[in-house]
């Protein structure tokens, strides 16, 4: 197991991690502002993947435009979910919102099966993106590089919005104290809606990346990214955008190294490993790395 192999695994982990980070950030943003776990977040990734497939099939649409439109699709779905399932639940106990989002997830998955059939579909990007790039012992496709770059750019843009704009201040204020935010004149309904839109847009484009990375998509694919986003967010501290970012990369690296360095028989235990990590973290490090301790977790 030479240094080259480990370097390759690290690169793989970073690529995977940047996707997880995008999904985790969206998830954490939403949790930060309404304190509810959006179980359907992963399914927005699925919708993004299928939307990409559909949009790519339209002749004459350049790929960058597809990416932009997928952002829009993700945002739109997020807003619909917020209006339909979360807004009516505002003020209800935590668990109620969770069950509602679970129900939305089931609806989305089954709608997917209904409309698109459960058969996995093949997914491939335009040929120019499949070019291999070799840097010494490490190699990856152009599309992998684009995934990382796009993810990083989006994260930077997001940080700029959240920390340097009026909207961002409104989002952070609403996340901290809903009532006082209203006293400042902030339209909390609109702020929450925008947060959902942004977070879900990120999930949507993560779907595009997911399809590109794994090559195959099906309506039930949302469970895995949803779960991983949640774990990454918890690692970094739920509600913290920076934390979700870090958590995403940590999870990506951990997963790749777990599979890459341990004997193959353990690979099947990957999901169990992820969940066990989650439970352990919830029990011993409830605020993750950067989270606020205002949570009532244990």
């Amino acid at each position: 197991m030479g240094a080259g192999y480990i370097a390759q695994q690290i690169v793989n982990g970073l690529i995977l991690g940047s996707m997880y980070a995008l999904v985790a950030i969206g998830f954490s943003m939403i949790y930060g502002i309404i304190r509810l776990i959006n179980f359907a977040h992963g399914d927005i990734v699925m919708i993004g993947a299928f939307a990409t497939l559909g949009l790519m099939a339209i002749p004459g649409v350049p790929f960058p435009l597809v990416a932009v439109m997928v952002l829009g699709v993700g945002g739109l779905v997020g807003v619909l979910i917020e209006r339909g399932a979360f807004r009516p639940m505002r003020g209800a106990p935590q668990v109620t919102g969770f069950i509602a989002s679970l129900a939305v997830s089931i609806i989305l998955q089954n709608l997917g099966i209904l409309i698109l059939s459960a058969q996995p579909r093949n997914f491939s990007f335009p040929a120019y993106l499949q070019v291999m790039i070799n840097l010494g012992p490490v190699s990856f496709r152009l599309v992998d590089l684009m995934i990382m770059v796009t993810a990083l750019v989006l994260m930077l843009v997001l940080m700029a919005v959240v920390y340097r704009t009026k909207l961002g201040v409104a989002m952070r204020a609403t996340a901290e104290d809903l009532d006082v935010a209203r006293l400042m004149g902030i339209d909390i309904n609109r702020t929450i809606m925008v947060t959902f839109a942004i977070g879900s847009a990120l999930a949507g484009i993560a779907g595009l990346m997911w399809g590109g990375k794994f090559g195959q998509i099906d309506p039930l694919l949302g469970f895995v990214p949803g779960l991983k986003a949640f774990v990454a967010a918890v690692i970094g501290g739920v509600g913290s955008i920076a934390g979700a970012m870090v958590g995403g990369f940590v999870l990506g690296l951990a997963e790749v190294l777990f599979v890459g360095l341990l004997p193959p028989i353990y690979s099947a235990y990957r999901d169990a490993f992820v969940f066990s990590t989650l439970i352990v973290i919830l029990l011993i490090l409830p605020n993750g790395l950067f989270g606020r301790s205002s949570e009532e977790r244990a």
Partner: protein
Amino acid sequence: MDLRRSFRLLILAALAGAGLVLVMQATLDDYILSIVKFVGIYTILAVSLNMTNGYTGLFSLGHPGFMAIGGYATALLTFPVERKAMFLPDLPAWLAGLALPFLPSLLAGGLCAALTALIIGPPVLRLRGHYLAVATMGFLIIVQVMITNWDSVTRGPLGLNGLAELTSLWWIYFWVALTFYVAWKLKFSSRGRTMLAVRDDEMAAQTLGVDVFRTRVFALVIGAFFAGVAGGLWAHLITAITPTSFSLVMAFNLVVMVVVGGSGSIAGSLITAVFFTVITEVLRPLEEGLELYGISEITMALILILILIYRPEGLFGSREPACLQPDEPARGERK
């Protein structure tokens, strides 16, 4: 005297139930009979989940995990020795040579599930609210993964099939009645009131000296026992058991039953278990005929969302219809 009256009611109900079973066995065709059996199993599941989630407010998505444990345990015990040698050559010796009749196997299955609950309860139950929900979901997935990979005992993804169809309507009737009885007795006992107190106001319960933690573990364990038994009944109704038999979707469906019926209401769980099982069966020909797969799940999810918005306490809240209330009010308790 009050005690004699409720005892008489009990006997009457038991006899009426038995009579119903006789009638059904005689008149209904096999297909409808099997639906009735599923209704029975789902009733056991819903009522037992109600004891965990509903009485104590403990949101558990792990019920199917306990079903899986109980189901596999029961199946392994009823499996005839010769078949075990063929299908599961790597089974540990004490298990390979053992084949038990149905009832002890079911009880063993329930006990295995209960034991698991006793082990995972203390760490996991330190969590609250939606974090607990996710942790129990994790438990479910971990169980699935373990079963899938423990080939020597479970035959991995292939599962066990060719199980004897031991689940008769009588067995189901027996277990439904037992579950009901336990749930009913528990709810109106002081321990049950403790559980409801913990759900409604944990801090207040604590100040009154309630050991909240033990109450929660107890709630999980007792729900797990009946889930394990239900798993065994299920396995011997379908005559097969695989790692995916008891999935997150089932966990969701059970939650829908408990929430829609009313967390804490036994009658509510019964009614919704019947209702939803029937709906799923009614919609099945639609699903397969018109290729509208997933329609029953979508329907259930929509009903749940509507209930959560417009009637979050469920159909019955925590109450029971008058005929199920105990006759003698306990000291200081309102009827």
